[in-house]
């Protein structure tokens, strides 16, 4: 197994853990944490491909990860604002209870 | 001769390491560097606690601690042995953990506090060739590990299950997050001018002399403003008066470490002071020329002496401010960060750009000073006008 394969396996496991959490947990914030973990797994993939890929001097994967982090920040801010708004409205952050569209 | 004195620690390290086999050398030299940081800065911390109490005493027209000297002798050393009984006391005290506390998190919080603080010393240049790790992105590393302190503050506040702890932690985090922005933005000006995130490059840029005076960044308009902003923000980052709301004794006992005693409290205390030294060291590196001397004829003084003396001077100013200013209110704190420091830091970045592109000459001095002074006056007037910050009017007392 090469180093790249190891990195990819780790990131795949991380993705699976994040996915499992996001799908199985009830709490909205935990779903958000799961999504962040999945994003990070993808970032780890990008960095691994940049490191072991053929053209590291182009810095494509590297810069992509930076942008993805900025997006993750924006996503977390908006997602948590949504969760807080829902909590204020419905007094719950349990996703099973927030399945109706009407308020 | 003076060069040898200047490099004495570096040569000693190389000499020590040279006895070892090739493979062990980096590891052992890292260990020695860690031991150096772990022994020097806690020592400075111990002295600072006494110095702080003495200076505060003098400011309040009284002696500070002046009794304890060398134990079991009559030598008093002006009270500079005070930290020994203090240390013994806090280390032998009973370690109390509240019954409702989250034991694991409560235990981990002081450790998590100390680790990033100690890590941040890794990139600070204490002297010529005396940087532990010469990272390419040293400044970013410093700010990154500094951000991790907030997690430990939250852990301490939340795990104690005490409303004062939680309030203190929330205040501390809100304050740290707010003041991190002017802190980083004021450091960005230096990065713009120097063109590097490496702290040694930043010092090398300041280590030149014209007419015998060093090119410290603080001697330029943008550098002066940047330094003042950095200074204020670092006061807030290290929870010092007048920004010590997170541990305002009169309101919330001791803030996030209310429920800590004994060794863990000592760790928090140590972490707080070490964080203060680290951030002051960064400020020195960015604006006050690091280990360089201000005038060219004093360059023979060893570089680490310059670093330590600058550090202690700024620590003195910190204590002086603590003895002078009262604590701010939470809204004043936030107003000051977002309505005064953030705009001024942004304008300062603009000014640094103008400074860079106008080239050498009297014109850039004039233009930059005018812009900065105008911005300061306008923003300051805005704050004063708001009556949030201005003179308080007493309705009944007068």
């Amino acid at each position, binding site marked *: 197994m090469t180093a790249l394969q190891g990195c990819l396996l780790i990131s795949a496991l991380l993705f699976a853990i994040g996915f499992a959490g996001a799908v199985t947990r009830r709490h909205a914030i935990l779903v958000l944490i799961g999504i962040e973990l999945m994003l990070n797994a993808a970032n780890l993939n990008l960095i691994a491909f940049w490191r072991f890929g053929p053209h590291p001097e182009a810095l494509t994967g590297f810069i992509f990860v930076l942008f993805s982090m900025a997006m993750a920040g924006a996503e977390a801010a908006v997602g948590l604002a949504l969760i807080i708004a829902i909590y204020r409205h419905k007094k719950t952050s349990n996703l099973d209870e927030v399945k109706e569209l009407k308020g | 001769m003076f060069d040898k004195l200047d490099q004495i620690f570096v040569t000693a390290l190389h000499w020590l390491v040279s006895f070892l086999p090739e493979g062990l050398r980096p590891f052992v030299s890292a260990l020695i560097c860690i031991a150096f940081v772990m022994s020097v800065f806690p020592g400075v911390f111990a002295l600072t606690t006494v110095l702080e109490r003495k200076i505060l005493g*003098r*400011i309040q*027209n*009284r002696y500070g601690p002046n009794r304890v000297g060398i134990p079991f002798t009559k030598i008093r050393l002006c009270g500079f042995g005070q930290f020994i009984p203090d240390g013994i006391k806090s280390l032998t005290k009973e370690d109390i953990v509240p019954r409702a506390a989250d034991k694991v998190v409560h235990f981990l919080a002081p450790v998590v506090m100390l680790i990033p603080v100690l890590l941040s010393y890794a990139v600070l240049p204490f002297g010529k060739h005396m940087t532990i790790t010469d990272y390419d992105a040293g400044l970013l590393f410093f700010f990154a590990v500094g951000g991790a302190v907030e997690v430990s503050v939250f852990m301490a506040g939340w795990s104690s299950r005490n409303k004062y702890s939680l309030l203190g932690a929330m205040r501390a985090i809100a304050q740290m997050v707010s003041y991190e922005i002017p802190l980083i933005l004021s450091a960005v000006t230096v990065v713009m001018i120097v063109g590097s995130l490496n702290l040694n490059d930043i010092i090398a840029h300041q280590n030149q002399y014209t007419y015998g005076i060093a090119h410290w960044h603080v001697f330029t308009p943008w550098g002066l403003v940047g330094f003042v902003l950095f200074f204020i923000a670092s006061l807030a980052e290290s929870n010092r008066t007048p920004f010590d709301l997170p541990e305002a004794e009169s309101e919330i006992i001791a803030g996030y470490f209310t429920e800590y005693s004994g060794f863990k409290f000592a760790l928090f205390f140590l972490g707080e002071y070490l964080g203060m030294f680290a951030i002051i060291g960064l400020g020195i590196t960015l604006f006050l020329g690091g280990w360089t001397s201000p005038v060219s004829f004093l360059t023979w003084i060893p570089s680490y002496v310059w670093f330590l003396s600058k550090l202690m001077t700024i620590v003195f100013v910190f204590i002086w401010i603590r003895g*002078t200013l009262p604590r701010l209110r939470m809204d004043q704190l936030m107003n000051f960060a977002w309505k*005064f420091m953030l705009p001024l830091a942004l304008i300062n970045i603009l000014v640094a750009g103008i400074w860079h592109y106008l080239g050498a000459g009297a014109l850039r001095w004039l233009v930059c000073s005018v812009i900065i002074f105008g911005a300061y006056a306008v923003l*300051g*007037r805005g704050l004063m006008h708001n009556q949030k910050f201005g003179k308080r009017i007493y309705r009944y007392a007068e």
Partner: protein
Amino acid sequence: MLGEQIIKGMAVTARNFFGSYVSKERLTTVQYPEEHLVPKENTRQFPFLVYDGDDWEKGLRCVACQICEKECPPKCIYIVKSKDKKPDYKGQPQLYPLTFDIDISVCMSCQICVEVCPFESIKMDTKFELSTTDRFGDLLLTKDKLAKSNRYYQKLHPQDAADSDAVIAGEKAKATAKVKAAAEAKVKADAEAKVKAAAAAATAPIAAPVPATPPTAK
């Protein structure tokens, strides 16, 4: 201008800081165990017993009248009267205290004992460093520890000591005058009695006894 007042405040504290090294006014703390403040004339801490002369047992002014014991609000004085009288007993009920204890852990330094003492014998001391390691023994001051000479008192509170000396001298003078007067009166009365007796013996041997008051009862 923003920050102006901060600079002013910093200047004030800086003045205090550096001034404390040069000016005594800016550093008023007295380093207590080594230095002491000169006590004020009116300092009063705990009571003591005054004696005249050199021998404290003989010269003790206290006559064990127990007024102070009765008046003491926290009841910290304990007196046992003697059965016999003072050697220089001059007619009044002049006993002396067999035991005179003051528990200074109870005493509240109210000075009432001093106010009520008619014999100028209990006064207030200025000593205050009375802490000991023995909680019961050393805080209960017995007669020998309480007795201080009049000279000590004169040094302690010159004005008050002079006043009380004057009172005692006045009383003494009065007493001697009284004794003298009594003696004279006695002499006179004796003479008169003699004369009368002689006269009575001569003139009226059946006369009733003269209701002359005895001179001492005056």
